[in-house]
């Protein structure tokens, strides 16, 4: 395997991507570590922005303290994972920062860099929370053209599905 794209953010879920390299996948020649800066924070507005508005938002944020804060955060996250991967024996780790909508940027980078596999963490969001704020792994899974591994953290709680409610004990 040649190239793998690993998308990380500051959530605990991202930590689980490290374990995937332990024994599941063959060691790739090159790993691209990607962090996507969310300019709009956690607001839902992003789904309603077109390309034009998004680039306006990008421009108006350029050079502001907020953007610098995001950059610092991105660097911190990427360094953290880079160190972990290199410690685990992966040689060629390239880092990359993008701005915008995480799932779209991940899919775009995957295409541009021609990767063979995309690895994302699972947020473990459930029910309403997932419905409202969305789930990056789900969107990536849907729009990606290459295989996707959704890594899982160990301490996740058992989810409560809708169907369970129908079961009579």
């Amino acid at each position, binding site marked *: 395997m040649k190239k793998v794209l690993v998308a990380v953010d500051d959530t605990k879920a991202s930590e689980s991507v490290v374990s995937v390299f332990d024994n599941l996948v063959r060691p790739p020649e090159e790993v691209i570590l990607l962090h996507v800066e969310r300019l709009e924070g956690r607001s839902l507005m992003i789904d309603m922005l077109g390309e034009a508005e998004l680039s306006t938002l990008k421009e108006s944020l350029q050079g502001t303290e907020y953007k610098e804060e995001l950059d610092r955060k991105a660097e911190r996250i990427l360094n953290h994972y880079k160190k972990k991967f290199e410690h685990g024996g992966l040689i060629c780790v390239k880092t990359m920062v993008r701005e915008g909508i995480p799932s779209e940027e991940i899919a775009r980078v995957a295409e541009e860099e021609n990767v063979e596999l995309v690895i994302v963490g699972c947020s473990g969001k459930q029910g309403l929370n997932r419905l409202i704020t969305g789930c990056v792994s*789900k969107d990536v899974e*849907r729009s990606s053209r290459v*295989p996707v591994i959704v890594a899982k953290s160990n301490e*996740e709680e058992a989810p409560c599905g809708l169907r369970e409610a129908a079961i009579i004990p």
Partner: protein
Amino acid sequence: MKKVLVAVDSPKGTKEILSLFRNLVSSPEDVILLHVEQLEGNSMMTAMLGEAEMTTLKDSLRGTEHKEALDRKAEKVLAHYRKELESGGVGHVRTMVREGHPSEEILRAAHEEGVDLIIVGCSGKSRWRRYLTGCASREVEKSAKVPVLIAKGNGCGEHARLWSGREAYVIR
């Protein structure tokens, strides 16, 4: 890696799954091939059935032609994959047939067998069909406790991107 569960539905995804084993994942000791028979066909009713009703449905279908057809299909699909995987030099292959709700049975089997990785195919259904009939890979991805690898076929994802809501707002 020790055990991998591969959920298969139809022979369509053969190439993708084989190429996964060739390039991506490290060779496992054990491969469990699982096919889940959907007793109720593609109807949405299954999501509304509780355990009790599902058992009744299973009982009442036993010995019918419909069930036999399902069994034949299961056997055919599993035999096909087993042959392909074995000729591809993938470790020890075991097959398994379950009945019921695909995503739930996949999760249950994964839990019972203590697998390290679940591999599912991507149905490539469009957004609306997906909302209506559901998508096993998403359900599995959501609730599994071990990593899930979603294999991709040709043209998979294209349709989804075409219809993702945001695109409608893009001014060209």
